[in-house]
């Protein structure tokens, strides 16, 4: 029981703990990195380099008054933040971290991740709808349109990798990359997945559902305390998930030269993408809502279809 194997209790518990702790740590990491890139210090008072800021934030968020507005639909209001945590944590079940660490080896792993991503949209929509607040409603309307649209390109951009590896199983996808990562033949798929991934986790520059300069805080305007905290941590969990997926699908997962153990390779690759997403937040302004939608449907959709078509033709030709 106390050995690492795919699906063992130890494996599941450690994945859950590490992933949630990492998401909490990212609150501090993001603020420090943003500070670095914007030539200021960021939180540096509590503990060494401000690392205990996470603890301070946690104490604050746990002890804050957890308020449900009297005009809100209570059942849905409480349900919404739980959905995002559940679906993102469920998605980690199919991610193969190393040859030994993972929860399940599903033959429909890629589809499972897509299904969970599409269910994640409910969290934002129900949160905004149940708040009974016009800013929240605007935010969740935007979120619904944005997430449903970008799901499409996200799915199609992954299919190139699926065609090349011949499997929906994420572990097999990593294993087929032993003689070459899919980033080279699938660079267009990678770029589309990257953009769609940011839009799915609705982070800056695509944080249009919660654009605070336009619509207060969008769908979580009425949330406070730990319910807000769950949206917040859920967003960081989504960031970790997208980074892990990019690592698995396009950068060979745990594969790498043997002088470092597999888990270190995986963390290094995923860490680079987490940092890259934070850099994107620091560097790019937010597009307008209609720009985001037309960019998706008029540019990304045709591009991803052409990419899939060419990949399929090449695979058929070389068979």
């Amino acid at each position, binding site marked *: 029981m106390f050995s690492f194997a795919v699906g063992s209790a130890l494996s599941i518990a450690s994945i859950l703990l590490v992933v949630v702790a990492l998401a909490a740590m990212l609150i501090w990491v993001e603020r420090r990195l943003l500070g670095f890139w914007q030539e200021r210090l960021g939180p540096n008072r509590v503990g060494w380099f401000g690392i205990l800021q996470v603890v301070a934030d946690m104490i604050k968020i746990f002890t804050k008054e957890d308020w449900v507005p009297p005009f809100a*639909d209570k*059942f*849905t209001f409480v*349900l919404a933040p739980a959905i995002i945590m559940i679906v993102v944590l469920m998605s980690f079940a199919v991610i193969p971290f190393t040859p030994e660490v993972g929860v399940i080896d*599903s*033959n*429909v792993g890629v*589809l*499972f991740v*897509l*299904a969970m*991503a*599409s*269910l994640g*949209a*409910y969290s934002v*929509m*129900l949160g905004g*709808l*149940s708040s009974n607040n016009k800013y929240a*409603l605007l935010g*969740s*309307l935007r979120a*619904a*349109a944005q*997430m*449903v649209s970008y*799901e499409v390109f996200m*799915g199609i951009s992954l299919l190139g990798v699926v065609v090349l590896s011949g499997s*929906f199983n994420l572990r097999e996808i990593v294993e087929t990359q032993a003689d070459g990562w899919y980033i080279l033949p699938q660079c267009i798929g990678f770029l589309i997945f990257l953009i769609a991934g940011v839009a799915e986790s609705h982070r800056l520059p695509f944080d249009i559902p919660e654009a605070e300069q336009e619509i207060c805080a969008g769908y979580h305007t009425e949330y406070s305390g730990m319910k807000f905290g769950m949206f917040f941590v859920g967003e960081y969990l989504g960031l970790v998930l997208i980074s892990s997926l990019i690592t698995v699908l396009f950068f060979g997962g745990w594969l790498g030269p043997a002088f470092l153990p597999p888990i270190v390779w995986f963390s290094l690759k995923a860490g680079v993408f987490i940092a890259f997403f934070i850099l994107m937040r620091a560097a790019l302004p937010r597009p307008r809502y209609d720009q985001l939608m037309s960019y998706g449907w008029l540019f990304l959709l045709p591009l991803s279809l052409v990419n899939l078509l060419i990949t399929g033709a090449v695979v058929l030709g070389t068979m």
Partner: protein
Amino acid sequence: MMLLFYLAAFVAVIATVCVIVQTNIVHALIYLILSLLAVAVIFYTLGAPLAAMLEAIVYAGAIMVLFLFVIMMLNLGQNTREQERAWLAGRGWILPALLAAVLLAQLLYVLSGVEGMSAPEQVGVMAVGARLFGPYVLAVELASILLLAGLISAYHLARKPGAEDE
């Protein structure tokens, strides 16, 4: 697997009943999503993982999102709840209940004749794909033509009259 099947079927039936008797339309929709997810689990236990995942992605994940999207824009309030409650009370139940009972009796009669239900085997994604684009390719193409027609007519209906490309 059999236990999972019965559990998921139980959830699906209860959730679907809740969809009908629930007067709050958003809650009814959440029950409908739950029911669709339960059906996805049923597909999985019957050995169809691809159908299960597509049920979750397409029905629970995409179509229901559009339902919710429409509900958001309709701005339904207390009035609709009372209207809904009035419709659900009393004699409206009699005829549908009778018709459903007839169907249930037929179903039970048919099922009681089936013998030797063996545990289903898993059908992989590749096997389904090979079937779809092998013997059933004509049906797939026809369905895609139907969808294309729907897409074009939706585009035509939603286009503002006189507003050409900007």
